[in-house]
């Protein structure tokens, strides 16, 4: 299988603080790749590097075989223009911890926005697709509602539909259920499970160990900016090899 995401010695600093200290990993096409770890371990930052919301300071990061944010000519790197970065981001969907729906648009307008504005799809076609996507995440009857009229779980499912509207080849989830009431988490995880079954490549930063064990194909435990342990989620979660992993899992499981 080919690698959808490939990281080689990725470093990232915010000022003097080094958040990522050399990350090496590979996300294969069609797999659900879970990133776990304590807060501040750098897992969200790494996720944001994948679609170039953050610039990396050292190493190489590839999505679908292409460098993220740069073009290589010979042994020189050239920064990509904003428009070129935007072009690559079309293919990468992202779901945020705090949903970040556009509050001045209804659910269906949120989902239509990018296909119309970025891909130049006609409004009627985009609207039909948006309705179908909302139906798929179980919100067919909420199309006309503004985000403020939806619960957190419903907002997050609209956000997933919004990302899917661009037909991404890769979906990034940044703690998608962390801001939700416990009883709403299940609905969002169900949608993500369906998505995984449909063969979408997903990188998921999560604290939902049950989801990781059940749906995940690979799992990485990060701490302090490095990958501590990786492997099959069921193996790592039930029989962690590393002391740090054991300590973390004993607290969250």
């Amino acid at each position, binding site marked *: 299988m080919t690698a959808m995401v490939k990281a080689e010695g990725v470093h990232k600093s915010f000022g003097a603080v080094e958040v990522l200290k050399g990350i090496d990993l590979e996300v294969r096409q069609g797999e659900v790749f879970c990133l776990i770890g304590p807060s501040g371990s750098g897992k969200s930052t790494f996720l944001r590097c994948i679609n170039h919301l953050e610039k990396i300071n050292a190493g190489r990061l590839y999505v679908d075989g292409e460098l993220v944010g740069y073009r290589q000519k010979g042994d020189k790197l050239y920064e990509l223009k904003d428009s070129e970065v935007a072009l690559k981001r079309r293919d990468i969907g992202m779901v945020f911890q705090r949903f970040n729906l556009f509050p001045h648009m209804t659910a269906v307008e949120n989902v239509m*926005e990018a296909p119309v504005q970025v891909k130049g799809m006609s409004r009627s076609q985009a609207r039909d697709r948006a309705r179908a996507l909302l139906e798929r995440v179980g919100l067919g009857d909420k199309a006309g509602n503004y985000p403020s009229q939806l619960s957190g779980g419903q907002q997050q499912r609209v956000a997933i539909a919004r990302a899917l509207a661009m037909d991404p080849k890769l979906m990034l989830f940044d703690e998608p259920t962390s801001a939700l009431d416990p009883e709403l988490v299940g609905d969002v995880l169900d949608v993500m499970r369906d998505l995984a079954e449909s063969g979408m490549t997903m990188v998921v930063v999560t604290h939902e160990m049950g989801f990781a064990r059940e749906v995940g194909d690979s799992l990485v435990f990060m701490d302090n900016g490095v990958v501590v342990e990786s492997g099959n989620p069921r193996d790592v979660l039930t029989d962690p090899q590393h002391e740090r992993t054991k300590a973390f899992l004993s607290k969250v499981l």
Partner: protein
Amino acid sequence: MTVDIDKTAGGPSGTPPTPPEAIKAIPVRHYGRYVSAVVAIALLVAVVYAFSQGKINWGAIPDYFFDDRVLTGMGKTLLITVLAMLIGVVGGILLAVMRLSKNPVTSSIAWFYIWFFRGTPVLVQLVVWFNLGLVFEYINLGPFYRDEWSDFMTPFLTALLGLGLNEAAYMAEICRAGLLAVDEGQTEAAHALGMSHAKTLRRIVVPQAMRVIVPPTGNEVINMLKTTSLVSVVQYAELFRVAQDIGQTSGAPAEMLFLAAAWYLLLTSVFSIGQYYLERYYARGSSRSLPPTPLQKIRANLFSLSNRSSTTGGAA
């Protein structure tokens, strides 16, 4: 234990529990409000009486209120207000975006513009525009336009540029505050969907910033309407200048100032109503239900009044 619970739930006589009676309490009386209302009304009456007894020929005001010259002057005041605000708003958004830009050249230009136009009095700017012929004798736009400055810079254009360019500097700061008030997650979400900077601004950030921008802009419109009276110094015949002119020829100068004041008050009141509905429009999606309009409020109050009278009538 269980017996006790049964008793309270079912009631001692075994009748089904009745819902608790609605509270009918005597509201707190606010005597202070009555007193202060009486004092305020008395003061108002005293002031009105004093003015009515003054040496002012009040009859002259209705005579000239709808005078053709006054109406044309008012039209020009409105025209300058609207056009200068248009320049101000467009220029302000542009300057705000420039100021927040990553490009150091554009942000410096915007900073300098705001520094200059906000730092000098608008009256001085108006006079300088009018007299710029001292510096530029001719205006020469190649094959398109060529004229002497004094012919080119009419009172109208002076008023428009003087007020509009000054306003842009103030609007820039209002717009900047609005743009900064929009959550960064919105920009990130738009970028993650592949939207360009310009599209993100136009479709996502600016519409949300409007909620913060509109209220102070309404304030600016009202301010602008009154500030247009300054352009009388550059010979532009707007409301204030017309009122002064009529005052001198008709022998009722003070009366005409009151007339102008009444017109300004009328126009600012109309603008305030417009502002209210504009704010409602940009508040959509920000609260679960929009607050009622004054008309809806009146209707609701009438309805509840008739409701109340019917219930009290039923009780009596």
